[in-house]
């Protein structure tokens, strides 16, 4: 099982994943044409700010198993693609009842007009894990566009393993015991984030 794994500490809030997602789900798949399309292509990933400035989290469908949205959908519009383990919505079967949105633990189901739906109405829209791209052997568009590795694509066990290793090294660095030169987040980046936290605290006074 592969998923889009989020490293929130690395997210810089550029929202490029949103733009890339909307372009990937446009008719033209081209940024400059997509902005003029009707209906407007919409992102299926949402970068929301964290508690303090300079923190953010890219929120998207986690393709739960069992998926509450799928369980409650009265028309069978939501199914699981068995090969790639992706929860997908068939907009043409959607009756826009919003049940899926109500039970979604992550609040990532929205209602928009879609170029792939014949009826002139809004339907439930969410991340499809870039199923078309995955079939072509590509990673999801949000992952490809993320230049800071806040979004990575892979097996969560593998990712967690390497992350755990990184954490252990960071702890070593923190204690100053072993290799002080081992990589941390860049100092300027940490300072940038620190400013966010400090200014937030000042404002809470």
């Amino acid at each position, binding site marked *: 099982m592969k998923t889009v794994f989020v490293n929130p500490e690395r997210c810089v809030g550029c929202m*490029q994943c949103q733009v890339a997602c909307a372009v990937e789900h446009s008719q033209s798949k081209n940024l400059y044409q997509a*902005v003029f399309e009707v209906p407007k*292509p919409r992102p299926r990933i949402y970068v929301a700010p964290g508690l303090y400035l300079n923190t953010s989290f890219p929120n998207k469908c986690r393709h739960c198993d069992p998926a509450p949205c799928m369980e409650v959908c009265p028309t069978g519009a939501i199914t699981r693609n068995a090969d790639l383990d992706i929860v997908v919505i068939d907009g043409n079967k959607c009756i826009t009842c919003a049940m899926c949105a109500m039970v979604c633990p992550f609040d990532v189901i929205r209602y928009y007009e879609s170029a792939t739906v014949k009826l002139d109405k809004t339907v439930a829209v969410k991340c499809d894990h870039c199923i078309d791209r995955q079939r072509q052997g590509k990673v999801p568009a949000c992952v490809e566009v993320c230049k800071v590795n806040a979004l990575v694509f892979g097996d969560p066990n593998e990712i967690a393993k390497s992350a755990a290793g990184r954490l252990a090294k960071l702890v070593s660095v923190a204690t100053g015991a072993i290799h002080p030169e081992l990589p941390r987040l860049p100092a300027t980046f940490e300072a940038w984030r620190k400013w966010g936290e400090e200014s937030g605290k000042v404002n809470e006074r």
Partner: protein
Amino acid sequence: MSDTFEHLSSAKDAQKMIRYAHEEHIETVWDRLAAQEPQCGYCALGLSCRNCAMGPCRVDPFGDGPQRGVCGADADVIVARNLARSIAAGASAHSDHGRDILETLYQTATGETSAYKITDVDKLKRLAAEFGVEAEGKEPAELAREVAWEMMEEFGMRKEELTFAARAPKPRRELWEKLGIMPRGIDRENVEVLHRTHMGVDNDYVNILLHAVRTSLSDGWGGSMVATEVSDVLFGTPAPINSKANLGVLKADHVNIALHGHNPMLSDVMVRAAQDPALQDLARSKGAAGINLVGLCCTGNELQMRIGLPMAGNHLIQELVIMTGALEAMLVDYQCIMPSVVDVAKCFHTEIISTFDKARFTGATHIPFDPKRGIEIGQQIVRRAIENFPNRGPRVVIPDEPVDMMAGFSVEAIVGALGGTPKPLVDAIAAGHIRGAVGVVGCNNPKIKHDYGHTTLTRRLIENDILVVVTGCAAVADGKAGLMTPAAAEMAGPGLKAVCQALGIPPVLHMGSCVDNTRILVLAAALADYLGVDISALPLAGAAPEWYSEKAVSIGTYVVASGIYTVLGVQPAIFGSPNVVNLLAGGLNDVVGAAFAVEPDPEKAAVLIRRHIEGKRKGLGLPFVEPDTIVMPE
């Protein structure tokens, strides 16, 4: 990735060197572009603003997220501010170059420089007349001092109108007056852009853009024109001259020195220093057959135009030329010099020598240029290069044989070739032998296959009897492609071919460096004045198929504002604002009589331009082809 690298460049010399870079794991501009992709959509659309510390802000182009920055600026204002700042940066680069040359003219006139003289006294006298300086009974030095002194005020605030703006046709000047975009002072317009785009000043996108246009005019009819005209006075007005181009101009048995950048001041001195018999002897004593200077980019163009200096290549060649292993020194002045040249040079013996205090490169040798000690500095640099010759590695790769090309078509040279008047050209256009003229200009950009945009567009235009004038990287691309010899007339349509053969000129005329786009403005104004119309009535167009630089944004804008339709090959960062796009690609027609188009495919750009030219011919009552009948390729 393909083994041939034909997808990255259409130039054979470049293809071979890119493959070499790939095999040797030397990072190039193409690798870095790949690492940057996909690039930020907000920035690409012009929707990010970092002008103040309430931000940075961005506007969601798809409508869900924020539609205004923290200050309240919407997409229109943010895109307009960013575009205006881009134009100001480009105009400032050209104008600061002009100022440096002008300062040198003044110092030469007062006898403070060791290497320069007043070369074109006739041009100096013509400039004196334009600037209201009495030339009668004055020595060239005295006249030059007075002209330079007056010209310095172009950069100031005492004028209501730039002196060179008087070169534009009367209806064009009246239009600029009416629109309130007559350029007043070069520095003034640029500073005003920075002021207006500060938060809370100009909050109307149309008003911001009008001033941005005025700023571009202060470049085209100001800073760049100063650079061109004063360079002609100091170094000579170009006349047709034979030269050669591509990486084959490097000589394996010579000390090779590349002159790279835009300002010809030091490079002009270098040419003389390299002729010094003592240095020639020194080179031979180190085992070299001689000293070979080659040009890169617009410094190369400046020297190729005046003395036929061989041209190694354009913008995207600057890293590849070092990889030949045959380059002892790369002398750089400023603009378009990638910081990466220092890194590439680390793999070879090449010494990168920076020369301007305002343009330093970490890791390079810095020898500050001073016009007052010009010749000594030139000799010092040539000596360093000679002494570096024995450090050359065993592997020298010179990938091609050079191609012949002709340069040197200043306006004076073109009018001279026509017999002293624009009449023969106007007659040929009126009769339809030549349908019109197009300036193919601008940079290289790794997003467009190197040189492919320039050469393909140029070929299609000359095939269809359209005279092409070129500057900058476009000139190098077309020269390397063999389009710039008199024999290339064979590649032109029958009408243009006959005219070129009668005059013994190429169908593609080299008009110089990127500041020399002002020569194109002067030529367009001369044609308009001859016919008694505005420039916008003429069957002319501009194209920048591979542009990358902020200078190109300024050039494109002053060309359009001067009344010439311009097709860009690369998207400017404006597509986040449909209002700005509609204005620049359409609405401007009703304002300045010309507009922009964006078309990355040079085959299609050629058709857009041909349709435009036939439309203008129709407007002038000349024989024309119905524009819509020209078929757009699929």
